[in-house]
């Protein structure tokens, strides 16, 4: 089985993001970028499946501008076999991304598409679901564990009431939660080897996908700073404040 893994380039999770002075977007110029953490887990799981003999090839795909090449190189260094970069001016919105992934999946014919459950930048949590719908495949979302046997994936995901267990037939789309595994590091010798691995560059046009935006961002605002806390003298004052000022109890 071939596994297609999508990896997104996002602002490094340890960077404090800031809104551009003109409020058009979050500032990315000069800001450190990294692989989306959920995508790291997706890649790790695919590599484990290959090591366990479930898969024989792991192909990584990233959609976005030229800097995505770096993220794909990292994925190759971590262990993927082959990379595909679909070049788009900026990161397309979820629907366009899902269409691109769908087009690539039709060419590659993978048994499973492993994806991060969401990007930590837009936090849409849509692309995996849309891809499954466009392909007409089953989906296993937010997986914190996943096992494959006889063409069926049995996965667990955490829900409010506990653990939900699902089964889905391949081909399918699976999305990874952080608890799925602990992602490995790239090693120095593998970084060198990664430079020689196959790397393909495509455009949305070549895939006959319209990657234009459907949504318009009007304004991006910084959340208001948190107001300082108040110390109350006793329970009675707390109750009265909750009732009179915060109006959260009757």
């Amino acid at each position, binding site marked *: 089985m071939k596994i297609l893994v999508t990896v997104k380039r996002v602002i490094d999770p340890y960077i*404090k993001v800031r809104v551009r002075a003109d409020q058009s977007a979050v500032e990315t110029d*000069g800001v450190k970028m990294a692989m989306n953490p959920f995508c790291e887990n997706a890649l790790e799981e695919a590599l484990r499946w290959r090591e366990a003999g479930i898969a024989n090839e792991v192909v990584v795909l990233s959609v976005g501008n030229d800097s995505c090449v770096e993220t794909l190189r990292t994925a190759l260094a971590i262990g993927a076999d082959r990379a595909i970069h679909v070049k788009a001016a900026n990161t397309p919105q979820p629907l366009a991304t899902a269409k691109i992934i769908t087009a690539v999946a039709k060419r590659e014919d993978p048994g499973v598409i492993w994806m991060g459950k969401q990007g930590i930048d837009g936090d849409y949590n849509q692309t995996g679901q849309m891809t499954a719908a466009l392909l007409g495949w089953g989906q296993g979302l937010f997986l914190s564990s996943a096992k494959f046997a006889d063409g069926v994936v049995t996965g667990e995901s955490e829900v409010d009431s506990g653990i939900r267990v699902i089964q889905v037939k391949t081909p399918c789309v699976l999305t990874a939660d952080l608890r799925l595994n*602990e992602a490995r590091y790239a090693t*120095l*010798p593998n970084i*060198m080897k990664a430079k020689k691995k196959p790397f393909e560059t495509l455009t949305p046009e070549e895939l006959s996908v319209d990657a234009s935006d459907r949504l318009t961002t009007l304004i991006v605002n910084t959340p208001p700073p948190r107001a300082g806390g108040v110390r109350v003298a006793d329970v009675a004052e707390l109750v009265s404040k909750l009732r009179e000022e915060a109006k959260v109890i009757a």
Partner: protein
Amino acid sequence: MSEREIMEYDVVIVGCGPAGLAAAIRLRQTAAESGQEISVCLLEKGAEPGAHSLAGAVLEPRALDELLPQWREDETCPIKTAVTTDRFCFLTEKKSYRLPTPPSMHNEGNYIVSLGRTVRWLAEQAEGIGVDIFPGFAAAEVLYNEQGAVVGVATGDMGIAKDGTQTGNYQQGVELRAKYTIFSEGCRGSLSAEVMKKFNLRTDDAPQTYGIGIKELWETEHANPGEVLHTIGWPLRNDTYGGSFLYHLEAGKIALGFVVGLDYKNPYLSPYMEFQRFKHHPAIAPLLAGGRRICYGARALNEGGWQGIPQLAFPGGVLTGCAAGFLNVAKIKGVHTAMKSGMSAAEHIAAALKAGNEAATLNDYEKDLRTSWVGDELRKVRNIRPMFRHGLWAGLSHAAIDTYLLRGKAPWTFGHHNDHSQLKKASECQAIEYPKPDGELSFSRLENLAYSGVNHEANQPAHLKLRDNSVAVNVNLQDYAGPEARYCPAGVYEFVKEENSDQHALVINAQNCVHCKTCDIKDPTQNIHWTTPEGGGGPNYDSM
């Protein structure tokens, strides 16, 4: 333990800053010109090139002109903001007096840059001509052959838990073996310190002296690209060496920072709080009003100049850039000298490789560099910084005499002192009350730290090690009132009162560390030892 994996290169460079990158680029250029094949790799402990780079910075392009003469025509080169005006002021608490700008501080033809961005661009140039750059890998160990010559470095093991056991992610370090190793770790590099000791590179020299520079990047409506301001005086007292820099960049950005000489004597002094207070000066506050701080960081710098430079060559390796100490304090610049030292090292290594000499001691590199323009400019200003130990006015008057009358040709050379031995006991000093940060112009240390992007893998042994645990409380706290809690710009050191007792204990929040190395320098008994944490850890500066 299994054998480590080995990768072989002709030259391994430790540290992806201006010196290391200039060396890498020059090596590949020389190789191409002379038809040699020279393989070069560069290790960087930061998560990417530039992530740990921090400087003012005004760049004198002299070395860059020699290295990449076409840089001005390159659209992608981030060096764009030419200096337009230059002011040097003395501050009192309420007033600002303009002083004549000393000739060494004139900035015609210079550029205001972000060192981080400049480094990223240089790294692209280096990769473009075949240099292997490995960010996220810390060189943790020097490798020696049987004759004692340096033959490369090893990267640190990754995936070691706090308790020293291997985690599921354990990955053994790799040996990078080389015919020559260039140490360009920056100021107070940990491996540079090791080779200096091993090869006695510092025996004949005065000790190195240092300063700590703390910097913020602001976005404001009051930026006037190209303007340069330096101040001395308030809020520092006359007996403390230091001052501020304030550089106006493009796109509404102002880089400002404060440098305090680490030979300060009062353990109650907090360089961080001096900087916060400084921003409230009536000449500074209006520039920042209504703006926002977008990045924060700190780094130690060399102030030893000519006298502080150790021997540069030893069997199999050389020291370059701030790892050796080429900062010109009078100019407040060191990127150009760092780059030139890297280029010079590269040329001598390429020649040695061509002649078939491996692991030799390249004494000619040192000789050439000392007689090059780098040596010239450092020698001329060598006596300026040492005189400031007698106070601001003595230092300034001497600087004027030395510059205008003696023109740097005085027949004497003043020596230095070790910074760590300069602290007085707390009982001999007055505590300093700093105003509380207002959250608009000035901030608490931890609030600011969030803007450094600092991160370390949490489950790893602390990379800040105490040689003797009891000294922290018995000496540092009792005699010196815990100076590390004040000079550390990242809040790594905290003296915490133990529950149900009057005893205090030192807590080391190693995760906060921005790799400035000040603790390694200033700790009064040299009990604190800075080592490299797991690769990729540390700050993630955005254009500092």
